[in-house]
C-alpha cells in the first residue's frame, strides 16, 4: 500500500518536472528570438497581423511563468490551469492549420521553419502534454486527499516512501 502511494508521488514529481521542463525550454527558446516567433504566428493566419508581435512577446513568458509555477505549492493549481489552457490552445491552432491545409511548421520551439517537426507530430505532442497536465490537475484539485497531498507531504504519513 505504501509502495503504491510512493510510486504515485514519484510519478507525479516526474510528470511535473517533465511538463515544467518542456514549457520553460519552449518559452526560453522563443524569448531568444521573438521576431522569428512573430513570423511563425503570422503563418497560422489566426491572429490579425498587428496582434502577432504582442502575442510573440507575451506567450513565451506565460509558458516560463507557468512552468516555474508548477514547483510552487501556492501557485501550482493556477499554473496547471494555465498550462492546460496553453496546450488546448496549441492543439486548436494546429488543428485549424491542418484543416486549412496550411503548409507551415509549428513554431513551438521558436523558429518559423528550420528543419522542424511536422504539424501532425506537434499536435500529438501538444495532446500528450495536455494529458499530463490534466492528470496533474486532477490529482491537484480532485479529492480532499488530493488536496492534502498537494501540500507536499510524501504520501502516507506513517510509512516512509520506499524507492
Amino acid at each position: 500500500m505504501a509502495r503504491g502511494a510512493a510510486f504515485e508521488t514519484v510519478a507525479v514529481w516526474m510528470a511535473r518536472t517533465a511538463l515544467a521542463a518542456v514549457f520553460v525550454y519552449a518559452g526560453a527558446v522563443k524569448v531568444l528570438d521573438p521576431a522569428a516567433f512573430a513570423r511563425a504566428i503570422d503563418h497560422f493566419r489566426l491572429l490579425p497581423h498587428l496582434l502577432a508581435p504582442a502575442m510573440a512577446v507575451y506567450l513565451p513568458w506565460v509558458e516560463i511563468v507557468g512552468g516555474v509555477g508548477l514547483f510552487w505549492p501556492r501557485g501550482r493549481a493556477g499554473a496547471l490551469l494555465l498550462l492546460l489552457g496553453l496546450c488546448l490552445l496549441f492543439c486548436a491552432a494546429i488543428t485549424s492549420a491542418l484543416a486549412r491545409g496550411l503548409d507551415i511548421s509549428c513554431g513551438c520551439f521558436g523558429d518559423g521553419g528550420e528543419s522542424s517537426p511536422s504539424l501532425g507530430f506537434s499536435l500529438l505532442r501538444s495532446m500528450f502534454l495536455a494529458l499530463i497536465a490534466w492528470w496533474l490537475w486532477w490529482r491537484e484539485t480532485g479529492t480532499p486527499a488530493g488536496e492534502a497531498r498537494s501540500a507536499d507531504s510524501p504520501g502516507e504519513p506513517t510509512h516512509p516512501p520506499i524507492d
Partner: protein
Amino acid sequence: MTLFRILPARALSQAAWLLLAAWVPALLTAMWHPRRPTWGPENAPVAEVTWSQASGGAGQVLWIDARSATVFAGGHVPGALSLNEAEWEQGLPAVVKAWRPGVKIVVYCDDRACEASQSVARRLRRELGLDEVSVLKGGWRAWLEAQHSKP
C-alpha cells in the same frame, strides 16, 4: 473518476496572478530585446483571394506571375506579366505600364505553399504605393483546376 470539475476559485486567481506576472518580462522584452518583432503594417501579409473572387469581380485584373521566367514561358494565366524578385528591375516597367487606376493586381505562384507570391505582392504594394494588391489562393494550380472545371 469524473472528467469535468468546476474550476476552483483559487486556481483561477492563481492563474490570473501568473498571467499578470508574465506581463512584466514581456513588456521589457517588447521594449529592449535586440530581436523584438517590428510593428509594421508593411510587413503585413497580403490578402488572399480565391480564383472565383478574382475573376468574377467587377473591375479589371492585372495578373502577375511570381514564378521564374522559364516556368512562366511554359504556361501562364493569359495576359499575365512575369515579375519575380530575381529579375525585379527588368520586370517592373511592364507592370507599371499595364496598371491603370481601378485595376486590381493579383499575384500568383505555383500553389498554396509557395512564398514567392507573398513577397512579390508585398514588394509591389510597398514600391508602387498601391493598396489593391492581393495574392491568388492556390496559385497556378488553382487556375488550372478552374480551367478543367469549366463547362
